[in-house]
């Protein structure tokens, strides 16, 4: 086993999720400190490569959310440097971070995901937004859920209950990216299932049920302590609990992910579990579900982070 002489937690970045990432980074660093590992937090900025060259780390723990953190770009650079890192490789991230691509891949593997369409803003412009919107509603019905094809933390995402709300929802979505994923909204129990691989293959953690207090699981609900209630494990029938675990592990495997991931799902009233999206760099803040599930299942958050770093260091670049 390699010694973890120097550990870098990579946090920040330039996406709209920078603040969340910085909070995740601090939490991982603190958890590592409690487990006896002295880590430094570094941003993905112009000084990063100089730092990594000057004092190569035993391993890097990337917790940059959103673009560059989850689209594989930073991991590609870490690969070029020969720096070991925790988490999925760049090629897998590229597929997982693009929600329509991930949906297509898991769907082809037999998993259920809400019916959807993916459209760039230029299409609305070129063909006429009203006509395209009418087609979407005629095809998918209502309610809908609109989100940017890439990104997280529900930024630019929201439900559409009435057709008249769809243009505004698309405007919000296009503020965060040029391609919209428009899904049928599935009412039901929202759960997040972490998957962790500590050397014995990917294992699902207990599902975390998310119950926002009022306006849905939006940005404020995600990052304001107390605005959302979480049940661990989720209050699901045994069959549904097993099914969401199976889907999370299957998505992790189908997309070729490594070490850890978090899959978001909805279980409808009939007990059908729908894959929504997967996160290759799940939130690690005090309101994030993956650390919650780890602790609830008897894993120490800090010890788990150390183990993931050890595996990365052993694996090498």
């Amino acid at each position, binding site marked *: 086993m390699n010694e973890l002489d120097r550990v870098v937690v990579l946090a920040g970045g330039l996406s709209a999720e920078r603040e969340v990432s910085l909070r995740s980074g601090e939490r991982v660093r603190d958890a590592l400190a409690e487990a006896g590992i002295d880590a430094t937090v570094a941003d993905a*900025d112009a000084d990063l490569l100089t730092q990594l060259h000057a004092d190569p780390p035993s391993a890097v723990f990337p917790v940059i959310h959103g673009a560059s953190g989850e689209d594989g770009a930073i991991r590609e650079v870490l690969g070029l440097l020969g720096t070991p890192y925790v988490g999925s490789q760049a090629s897998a991230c590229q597929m997982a971070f693009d929600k329509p691509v991930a949906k297509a891949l898991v769907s082809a593997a037999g998993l259920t995901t809400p019916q959807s369409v993916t459209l760039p803003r230029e299409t609305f*412009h070129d063909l006429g937004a009203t006509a395209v919107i009418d087609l979407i509603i005629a095809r998918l019905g209502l309610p809908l859920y609109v989100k940017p094809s890439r990104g997280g933390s529900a930024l630019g995402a929201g439900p559409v209950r009435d057709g008249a709300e769809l243009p505004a929802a698309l*405007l919000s979505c296009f503020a965060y990216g040029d391609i919209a994923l428009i899904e049928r909204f599935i009412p039901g129990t929202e759960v997040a299932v972490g998957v962790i691989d500590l050397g014995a293959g990917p294992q699902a953690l207990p599902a975390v049920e998310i119950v926002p207090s009022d306006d849905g699981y939006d940005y*404020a609900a995600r990052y304001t302590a107390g605005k959302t209630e979480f049940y*661990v494990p989720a209050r699901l029938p*045994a069959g549904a609990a097993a099914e*969401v675990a199976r889907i999370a592990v299957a998505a992790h495997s189908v997309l070729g992910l490594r070490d850890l991931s978090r899959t978001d799902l909805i279980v409808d009233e009939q007990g059908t579990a729908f894959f929504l999206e997967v996160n290759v760099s799940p939130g690690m803040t005090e309101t994030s579900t993956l650390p919650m599930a780890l602790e609830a299942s008897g894993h120490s958050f800090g010890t788990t982070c150390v183990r993931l770093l050890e595996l990365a260091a052993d694996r090498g670049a």
Partner: protein
Amino acid sequence: MTADEQPASQLQRIDPYVGQYAERAVGMVASEIRALFAVAARPEIVSLAGGSPYVTALPLDAVGEMIGQLVADRGDTALQYCTAQGDAGLRERICDVMALEQIRAHPDEIVVTVGSQQALDLLTRIFIDPGDVILAEAPSYVGALGAFASYQAHVVHVAMDDDGLIPEAVEEAVERTAAAGRRAKFLYTVPNFHNPAGVTLAAERRNRILDICHRAGVLVVEDNPYGLLGFDGEPMRPMRADDDEGVVYLGTFSKTFSAGVRVGWAVAPPAIKDKLILAAESAVLCHSAFSQLTVREYLATQPWQEQIKTFREIYRERRDATLDALASLMPPGCRWTRPRGGLFVWLTLPEGVHAKAMLPRAISSRVAYVPGTGFYADGSGGQYARLCYSLPSPDRIREGIRRLASVIETEIQLRDDFGPAPGTR
């Protein structure tokens, strides 16, 4: 343990006190806008957001030496408690500063505060019960609105034009408030180089507004952080120079010396001053003696008036760069104010374009501004953006405005495709 071995479900409350907060804390939640501003701090972003003074222009070595000497010579005072009213020597110096703007005040009329923000907080604390009315410009300073909201004030915005507050609008707001069976407790105004609007209250309007407020028994709170940062001619005569009974005057060293020392002040009629001192005692016991003596020493030993001229010239150059870039780059439908001092330009976006909705795209394009919604108590003002030119160099300002123009052009296309953004109709 894995999902196959599930224990009983447990409710996880991240905040066990969630049901115990005061009503005024309900709105204190994480926000997307705050998250976006976290990105704006990165050097890749041209930030026209901020509002911070360009302290890099200070003689930092000399200030550092001065502070070292202060601690060596008078550390026993600088590192000790002091009175809630503030250091007497500093208050004398503050009178010298205000004399530049024709205010004649006695040191005993002054209460030193933690920036003028604390003065706003204390004034609101001693005057406002939940639901009481405060008149404020439309738009108004976001920090003041935050203080007013924390005491659950009802803010009635009053219209401005290029010459600042419109006296007839003040009168109408006073009358409308009275007709509703209420009385406005005070009028809050930033008359010089307004934050965020960049306009200045015309001299001939000042006494008219004082007269309207005097007749209605409405106190005037005159907040003047930028008065010495005018680009043309002599400083405008503050309202406090003509009325020492109906005006509470707020000043600060944040823009003329250092925002980091957090030293501001209030000049108030005796009864109000006494309550401010008591309120300050209960809030902070006393303000930092170290900060106060630092400012006092700065005023006594450094060429502070020359430094203000330096700031003025830097901001004038950056204002010019901003206005030139706006004129040459902004798409049709945009309008903006032309400040004669201070730090801010107020940009009106084309119809149907919402500044808050546009911000994520702007950040992705690596330019930041403050959406107008923060400057209205009811969250309206989406068609406006505040641009601050104090920190970026003229070249960076031009690049930032080039990026912003491109973002606005995309928003115009989105508006044409999807209709006006909500909140702009």
